[in-house]
């Protein structure tokens, strides 16, 4: 993993991959993911097949094989726009942000969450604050880290799993895990240094 989180384009590329709507979008994001890695991803010959698999996993119209929403993994019943979505919405509100698809696309969609994690990362790099640190700690280390591994597992085991998508999902899982490690490390450093001074 690239140790420099600010300049590493992996996070944005993963975010864009999971919200892309067609083969060209998948391809563009996949190539960006590949560029961000030190070891490039395997070449994909037929992007149409990726698109078909992507819709079966995340879009529809059939029952989704791996719904890209946190709610599905964190709640007892398979439903969106419930407590988890609303909790994530309130995290975005805390950050002064709002989804452009409020009340049309659940806020706990993996790409929106990755985007929020990226914003929190950027904010931390630019100085941050104790509150933001706590918010980031909660959102990434506890919330995202709680469901993304289950999501990654479900993608890898899905009937329509395509190697390119499985790889992207695994990388997303890895990215969240790395973020969590980084956040905890930074937090410990701050605590050692006597906490935030702002």
């Amino acid at each position: 993993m690239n140790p420099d989180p600010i300049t590493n384009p992996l996070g944005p590329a993963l975010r864009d991959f999971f919200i892309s709507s067609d083969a060209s979008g998948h391809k563009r994001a996949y190539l960006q993911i590949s560029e961000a890695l030190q070891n490039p991803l395997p070449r994909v010959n037929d992007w149409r097949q990726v698109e078909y698999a992507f819709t079966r996993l995340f879009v529809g119209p059939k029952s989704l094989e791996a719904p890209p929403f946190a709610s599905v993994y964190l709640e007892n019943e398979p439903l969106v726009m419930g407590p988890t979505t609303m909790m994530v919405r309130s995290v975005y509100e805390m950050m002064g942000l709002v989804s452009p698809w409020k009340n049309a696309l659940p806020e706990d969609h993996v790409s929106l969450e990755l985007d929020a994690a990226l914003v929190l990362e950027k904010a931390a790099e630019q100085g941050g604050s104790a509150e933001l640190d706590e918010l980031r700690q909660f959102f990434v280390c506890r919330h995202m880290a709680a469901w993304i591994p289950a999501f990654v597992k479900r993608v890898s085991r899905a009937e329509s799993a395509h190697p390119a998508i499985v790889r992207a999902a695994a990388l997303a899982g890895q990215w969240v895990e790395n973020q969590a490690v980084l956040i905890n490390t930074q937090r410990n450093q701050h605590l050692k240094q006597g906490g935030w001074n702002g």
Partner: protein
Amino acid sequence: MDKRDADSVKQAIGCPMSRRKFFRCLAAAGALAAMPGGLLRPFDAKAGKIIYEGDYEIYRNACPRNCYDTCSIKSYVKDGVLQFIEGAQASTFTDGGLCVKGYAYTRRPYSPDRIKYPMIQDGRGSGNWRRISWDEAMDMIAKKLVEINDKDDSMLGLGLTKYSGNFGITNYAVEGMMTSLGYTTRLVGTPCWPAGIDAQNYDLGDMWCNDPEDMVNSRYIILWGANPAWNSVHTMKYIYAAQDRGAKVVCIDPVFTQTAAKADVYWQVDTSMDGALALGMAKHILDKGLFDKAWVDANSVGFDEFADYLRNEISVQWAAEKSGIPRQQIVEVAEEFATAKPATIWIGYGLQRHVNGGATVRSIDALAAMTGNVGKTGGGARYGHMRTWGFNYHALLQKRPEGAKGFLGGKGPKGDFDFSGDEEAEYTDRALNINKTAEMLLTADDPPIRVLWISCKNVLSQDFDRPKMLEAFKKPELIVSVEQFFTQTVELSDIVLPVTTLFEEHTINASYWHYWLSVNEQAIKPMYEAKSNTEIAAALSARMNKLKPGSCTFPTKVDTRQWMIKEFNQDIYDLFGIDSWEDLKKGPAKAKMHPASWHDLEFGTPSKKYEFRSDLCAQHGHQALPKFKAARKPYDKLRLLTPHTKFGIHSQFINIDWMEDFNKKPYCYLHPLAARERGIGDGDQVRVFNKVGEVELEVKLTQNVPADVVMMYEAWFRNNAYNCQNVVDDTSSDMGKYKTGAPGVAIHDQFADVEKV
């Protein structure tokens, strides 16, 4: 998910960051608004206000499904999200409660399985779907429509099949869209209740039932082929109330239903022999002189001929043999029914889904009429009504494009919900029988159905002879489905368009049973990219006119709330005693109608009397008198029944997670005697098969079904290929063409055998 994951999940849900702490955080996070992400954007006034606490926004909705109860709903919304719903207290019928399916409604907009975007399938049935934009979808469809119009010099190659998936009045925009494109082909008729509608029209001059709330006044209630304990739970309270006041309740059904369990008397009638039973009762009432002579003399025609028929050709013993109900029981109930005033009969839709269904309903109507129970509170032969449906049909009534050509020589489509009026025109739409959709798709020619548009309907689950339907679905060049979930019909479509749920659109709902009217407000924004049927019509029109100006008259921009308002008129306001539609925002309103249908005894028949002898019926090729009509000859060893399940309305609701909790998979039901003969045990996997096709599923043994019956519920399961239409053919019922444009289907005149697999 393993235990470690599960523990993390619990931690994440039990968020330790309280709201208070969040607030503190907000000030610190203000800086983040200056650095939005790639997707998230700054929260500003345009994004609305942040809702933390406080009251819910309350909206009025109504269940638009094909159900007697058409419940008035109150919806509670917070920060644009539907939280929960309840039955409206303002309606004495809904009375603050919903059914098991209704309470699951909040699961519908927010199911992760919902169809979210317009999508195209590369290869019908291939499962290779791609997401496309609305513009792309409309462009593909519009280009195809222009192409077929150029090829055929008409739009008759465009076929519409739509029925009862959403009865909200503005959804007639689908038919309006078709009209606005030209003369098209319509699959007309109804699989539901047509034979009974015709029967009541021959007898009474219309289908018009008493207010169900008036059933409390009945002294004797026969629930004939109806299972309200499952299918009209709100009516049950009036039945119980009548029982509490001393009324006797008789339930007649081949299946021992939950309603039967609540009745005082249960008759397990031999399927399709209800007419014989009614005539046997009529004969005994006649013999005993218990009929209402004054009533029939004053208000009917043909009674003497009917009486002669009963005297000469009917005996109670014959009725007992035909129906399987002992003679003595027929005699007792007939006498009680004739002497308890008022007495009523609820005629269920199942008993007319037979080759003799219309004749049966006429026999039962006759029983109510000869005892003077028609036109009386607490009385009536109750079937349904459309008396509260006098809307403007603004969405439906669109102009044809200039120069449009169509079908010559036909009278045009009719239907149970046909509100198009009797417009005389050189051309008409081409009408094909909806109950023989497979056959029609295969045989329609000059032009064939090149484009099939499906809305408010799950053809592959609900239409008959599915093996033939699978063949028929190979024929159209383009199939477009408008849906909320991935049904078996969507599976075989080329394009699917996501449609709004009831919470996401403005419309109005009336009932074909009770007398209440509800407004349905848009309570939440449509999820994902769903559009209402009205908006879809407008979007298609915009694209059509861009490609070929003047090719579609449907407005290209619609304000759906305004379109809902445009459906109201002064007659509606007067009927419901309201000054404006906005009064309905305070709650549903009830029609200011007499509780008894035909209370003025001004019948709608040619003679203006109740017609025991209907010449019109005879002109239409049936018997003038409500005589016995023979049943369909069995074509296999067991009778097959495919009635409604408790957990769905036709193919709807069964896929909703809360319903799945109780109803995970389909079963067939077999009597232990029939099972023993076949070496079948409870829980065995069996094959139900006949000349049409076969179904494989688990069997449950029960004495609730007769020994000569195999039963399975009609249903569409999300993750199960089950489909009862694999073993139901498209044989017509006797009546239905007169008022609904096509005869019904003999859904319960099916036969099959069962074997262990």
